[in-house]
């Protein structure tokens, strides 16, 4: 059915005569067929949220309902691809993204397919029908979709399979290689799994102090320039997930170009393939239409669940969820909805909760184990962590990695605040680490935490009275705090050797500082003046992280020996 536009105010479009339209149905607006979504129906008028620039749209223009909600196209072309907020491919789109310039799908590709079922087999949702080989090492599994079951009446032969071809006929339903799924509806799974497993991020401050479990959630609040994007990009590059879905939501175009270029160059240390082949990028930069920001978050979650269902560990990274929340606010204010805090709609909290709820480690419908970990940046206006988006997000996530402006100013990167961050997964992961052969993990974490807290307390004191006025033992704690920050917590994303760090090296570095801290205490106890210890050249310890490779724990220990020997020389 065709309706007529009656009102246009930026992304808000009102349409008359769209009889039979349903909530959240996609509507094509005007001569260019700009996509929009029905967000309210009142009397004969539907309110549509347009996903592209509406300049030139006028009352009287046509509006055509598509008959289905906003859906993502899910298929083998996702890995290695870059998509807009509606998950439409940006490869092949023109330089300038005028309204209507981006197509729903790219050129139809073709992938080598291996069938995995026999005709006549009885299958259930989530069962494996076939695998296809895509760019990377990951086996792309074609599964029986949710809600479909029965006998396999036909299955495609081994060999090249087009993206839109049918892979199998199951219970009277054609299962195509590329399917669709409504982005606002979570994909079903059989059950949520309890036992925690660590997601290794390669960032020491996280892995040692604020670990995140697979299927868990983390938020990264921080003012501008504190390092949110760099930290998230580090995760995208180095964390040990199978698939990364990176959603650039209302952020910089140059950063997207950068991350695409980086991922293409970098090798995946776990598979030897290129990192880009495990990554799906959803790019809605800040100059792209604001309303698509809202969709991009759900599109990313949907893609993640799609790979989770294949039995993979997926990480969704959203930079920044604040831009998504602002899109919610913007549209709500245009519809005249009653604003709650700072103009945000009253359902902000439930929208945030629903997004993070899409995380989880699950048994899939097909009986595999898979997970979706969600990590979202939060950009508080004025760096004010009490503002609505930050405050609400902190309620719903399991880990908060707060970035501290003072640390960033001091170029202490990653600027993760040890006093302002938390991980609710840490305890459960302690026993997991013990089972993985690192029984000292929990103790090490506690020692580092205590030392940092004690050093903070003393440095506040030292600011009042001068460090020189403190007793030797306390001065050694201050020194140890500094050494922990410089030798362990700092980790430059730009370093060739230290951008990522494996668990053994991380543990070795932390243990090295703890050992040096002990030795320094022994020295002052033995009568060595504190100033003399402080003026020692700690370069061997501080530079260890840079000078040995990312998995060279033995190298760290060699640096430690040099350092300890140097300290021993101080003894009278």
């Amino acid at each position, binding site marked *: 059915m065709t309706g007529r536009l009656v009102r246009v105010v930026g992304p808000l479009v009102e349409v008359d005569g769209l009889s039979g339209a349903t909530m959240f149905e996609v509507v094509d607006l005007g001569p260019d067929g700009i996509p929009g979504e029905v967000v309210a129906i009142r009397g004969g008028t539907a309110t549509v949220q347009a996903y592209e620039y509406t300049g*030139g*749209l*006028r009352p009287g223009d046509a509006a055509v309902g598509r008959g289905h909600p906003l859906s993502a196209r899910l298929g083998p072309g996702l890995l290695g691809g870059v998509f807009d907020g509606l998950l439409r491919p940006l490869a092949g789109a023109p330089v300038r993204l005028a309204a209507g310039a981006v197509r729903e799908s790219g050129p139809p590709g073709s992938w080598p397919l291996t069938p995995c079922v026999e005709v006549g087999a009885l299958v259930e949702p989530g069962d494996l029908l076939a695998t296809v080989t895509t760019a990377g090492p990951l086996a792309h599994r074609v599964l029986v979709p949710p809600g479909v079951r029965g006998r396999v009446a036909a299955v495609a032969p081994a060999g090249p399979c087009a993206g839109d071809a049918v892979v199998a006929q199951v219970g009277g339903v054609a299962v195509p290689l590329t399917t669709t799924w409504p982005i606002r509806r979570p994909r079903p799974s059989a059950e949520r799994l309890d036992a925690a497993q660590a997601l290794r991020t390669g960032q020491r401050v996280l892995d040692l102090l604020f670990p995140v479990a697979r299927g868990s959630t983390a938020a990264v609040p921080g003012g501008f*320039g504190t390092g949110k994007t760099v930290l998230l990009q580090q995760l995208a590059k180095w964390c040990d997930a199978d698939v990364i879905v990176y959603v650039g939501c209302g952020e910089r175009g140059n950063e997207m170009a950068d991350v695409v270029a980086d991922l293409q160059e970098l090798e995946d240390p776990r598979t030897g393939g290129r990192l880009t082949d495990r990554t799906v990028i959803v790019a809605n*930069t*800040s100059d*792209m239409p604001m309303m698509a920001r809202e969709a991009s978050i759900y599109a990313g979650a949907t893609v993640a669940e799609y790979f989770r269902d294949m039995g993979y560990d997926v990480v969704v990274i959203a930079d920044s969820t604040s831009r998504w929340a602002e899109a919610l606010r913007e549209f709500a204010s245009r519809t005249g909805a009653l604003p709650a805090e700072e103009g945000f709609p009253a359902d902000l909290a439930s929208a945030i909760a629903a997004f993070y709820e899409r995380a989880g480690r699950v048994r899939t419908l097909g009986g595999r184990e898979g997970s979706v970990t969600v990590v979202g940046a939060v950009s508080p206006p004025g760096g004010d962590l009490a503002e609505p988006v930050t405050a609400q997000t902190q309620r719903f996530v399991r880990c908060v990695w707060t970035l501290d402006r003072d640390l960033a100013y001091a170029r202490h990167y990653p600027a993760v605040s040890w006093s302002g961050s938390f991980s609710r997964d840490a305890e459960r992961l302690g026993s997991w680490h013990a089972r993985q052969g690192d029984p000292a993990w929990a103790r090490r974490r506690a020692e580092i935490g205590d030392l940092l807290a004690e050093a903070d307390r003393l440095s506040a004191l030292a*600011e009042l009275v001068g460090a020189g006025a403190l007793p030797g033992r306390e001065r050694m704690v201050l020194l140890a705090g500094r050494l922990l920050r410089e030798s362990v917590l700092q980790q430059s994303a730009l370093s060739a050797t230290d951008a990522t760090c494996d668990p053994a090296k991380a543990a070795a570095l932390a243990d090295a500082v703890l050992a040096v801290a002990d030795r320094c205490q022994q020295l002052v106890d033995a009568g060595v003046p504190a*100033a003399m210890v402080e003026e020692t050249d700690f*370069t061997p310890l501080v530079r260890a992280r840079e000078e040995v490779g990312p998995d060279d724990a033995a190298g760290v220990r060699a640096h430690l020996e040099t350092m300890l020997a140097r300290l021993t020389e101080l003894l009278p």
Partner: protein
Amino acid sequence: MTSLDSSVEYGDVRELRGPLLVVRGVRGVGWDEFVRVRLDSGELRHGLVLEVDRDLAVVQVLEGTEGMDPGGTWLRFAGEPLRVPVGLGWLGRVCNGRGEPVDGGPPIPGVTTAAVAGQPLNPMLREPPADPVLTGVSAIDALTTLVRGQKLPIFSVPGLPSLELAAQVAAQATVGAAAFSVVFAAMGITHADAATLRDVLEERSAAGELVLLLNTADEPVVERILTPRIALTVAEHLAFGSGRHVLVVMADMTSYAEALREVSAARGEIPARRAYPGYLYSDLASLYERCGRIRGHAGSVTVLPVLTMPAGDITHPVPDLTGYITEGQVVLSAQLHARGIYPPVDTLASLSRLMRRGAGAGRTRADHLDLAAQLLAALDRARQVRELADLVGTAALSQTDRAFLAFEETFERVLVHQRRDEARPLEETLDRAWQAAAVLPRRELTMLSAELLDRHYAPAHAAAAAERRG
């Protein structure tokens, strides 16, 4: 859809409010269209369509509604968004905030035109910025290197020489041998500042390397909504049409945001922080994001917005949202200004996020990035020592701590401070940076490799140089 007949004139004006005008009885008018408004006096004004509702259109009048009367106001809709001429004809010209010449010359030739709103750039076809724009200002070149295709704002406080610094950069920036142009969009500045600006930029203008758009403080506020858009449209075509590297200076963005706020208030929109509209982030991004490089094209657009932080508050929405969009910031400090340092750049609060791509071996100099990182780390330590010294006195400081204070002093006097008309070559800038570093004992320079230190670290020389320069 039938194409619109722009000869139709509508006169049923129902409402005039702030910069807004509501007209009834229109047909086929599209959102965001450009409007010509004729007054009975013969005066011509311009506007943009903010809303169309059946036969009703809400128009924002760029020159404001002052002196208008509903009975004597006639509107023609252009059938498309506002377009301006583009091309090399802009170079060497001085225009007002709407792009009309005020230099006595002929109109800008309009063979090719482009919509001022611009269009989003496909992020896949962006080329990551990778080469420096050398400004000849040490504080920027050494520590917050400006990179071609970057957006890097200057955050200032009322009373600080931000416009002077922007003008100095506009006057002396270069990109080596490649063709370079500057588009300077001044918004809400005083006549005195406008005169100074024209003076400082005279040479560059005469050389045909400059486009100057001037909206002074007494000119219509709403016009400022257009000024940066025209500047960027002109710049994009100089860059991607003619292969030039273009620097766009936009001063003062706080004035721009005020214009936006005025329109929003007149529309009765729900305000977000400090009465600025909720879409301020997206609106600013639609300007700043127009910088960059495009794959397969030679030129680049670099954007240098200048803004004053009301009452020096960096959490004010304009600097805050700007900081969230731009690739770093150059922050000016009242304390440094009071100490007589020009430019008063607060290096610790400043940052160029793209510096690691645009500086270093093959771009500036091999030692540049490590040296800059070391200087910043040392400055941070010096800051802590200074805070301590304020409490306990310098005498109570250790020798090392005192060295950090001396370092900071040398850093400010030898590296940062320079004349307003001094274009410092990069080599000299980096050598001065080493002189500052050399004030510290070698063991404190843990971020520099032994190799770099062997090559550049010369403490005696530094002391002598510091002496000479006082």
